[in-house]
């Protein structure tokens, strides 16, 4: 089944989880996705295999970055009429607080959708949305 067919099925069912489950790395991370008025909410369930600092313990910074990239890609796929898989051009992640071994949430906001390039801001948090663990922005190529 092609990505286009999976995306069409997910949109028909209003079930972005179907889309997340079709991408191997998102499945590996165990991402869950909820559709809402403010855009997709992407949840990364806490798992020992995602820990980067076993002393604290804290999630691996790369995993937090990957969650934010995933939130942006899913949001773009969900919003756009075509089924082009966005290619990450660049990504800036600021780590604001240690991300403990807890569920981590992320939401992406498409700041600008151009003809070929999209700019997306992403926030990630754990207990409280107003206490982000990381903030990121990224450019994606859609061509």
């Amino acid at each position, binding site marked *: 089944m092609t990505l286009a067919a999976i995306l069409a099925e997910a949109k028909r069912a209003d079930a972005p989880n179907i889309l997340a489950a079709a991408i191997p790395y998102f499945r590996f991370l165990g991402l869950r996705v909820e559709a809402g008025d403010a855009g997709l909410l992407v949840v990364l369930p806490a798992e020992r295999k995602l*820990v980067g600092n076993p002393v604290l313990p804290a999630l*691996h910074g790369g995993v937090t970055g990957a969650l934010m990239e995933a939130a942006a890609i899913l949001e773009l796929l969900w919003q756009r009429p075509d089924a082009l898989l966005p290619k990450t051009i660049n990504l800036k992640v600021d780590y604001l607080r240690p991300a403990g071994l807890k569920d981590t949430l992320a939401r992406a906001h498409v700041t600008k959708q151009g003809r070929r390039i999209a700019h997306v801001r992403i926030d990630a948090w754990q207990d409280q949305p107003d206490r982000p663990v990381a903030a990121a922005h990224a450019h994606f190529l859609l061509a």
Partner: protein
Amino acid sequence: MTKPPAKFDATLMATILERFIPHCREIGMTMVSATPERTVLKLPYDARLAGDPETGVLMGGVITTLIDTTGGMSVNMRLGEPTSVATLDLRIDYLRPAKPGETLFAAAECYRLTRHVAFVKASAWAGETPEAESNPIAECLGTFMIGDASAASGAVAERPGKGRPA
């Protein structure tokens, strides 16, 4: 404050990476070499980490994880001790995709070290050919906070002066 149990070198760093960091062990990240000037890590291809279900090309986030780890370890190698290092920020350009099946490599250099902050340049490439390194898949600039991982939360702990470079 307890001293590290053994002399801190690339062998100890490899043990920390390959045995004690759960995520790195899970995805099979290993050390290639590490000196105070340059740390090189590698990550074999793993279909579980693909971002494109049709081609099997890895997700950018996997490269982020490899670069973040390599950058942090380059700071430890420059410091010469396994101090807790927390990433402050990463800025990564994804220059081209790696081919499915290719092993990823990342090299990082901590080119400036201050008491609290370390500045790092890193680069990633794919494949084991001699020319692979000069055709990178990603370039990165990053900064890391030294000494206390909870510092990023504002809870900067007191720690004894160690006569590190200012």
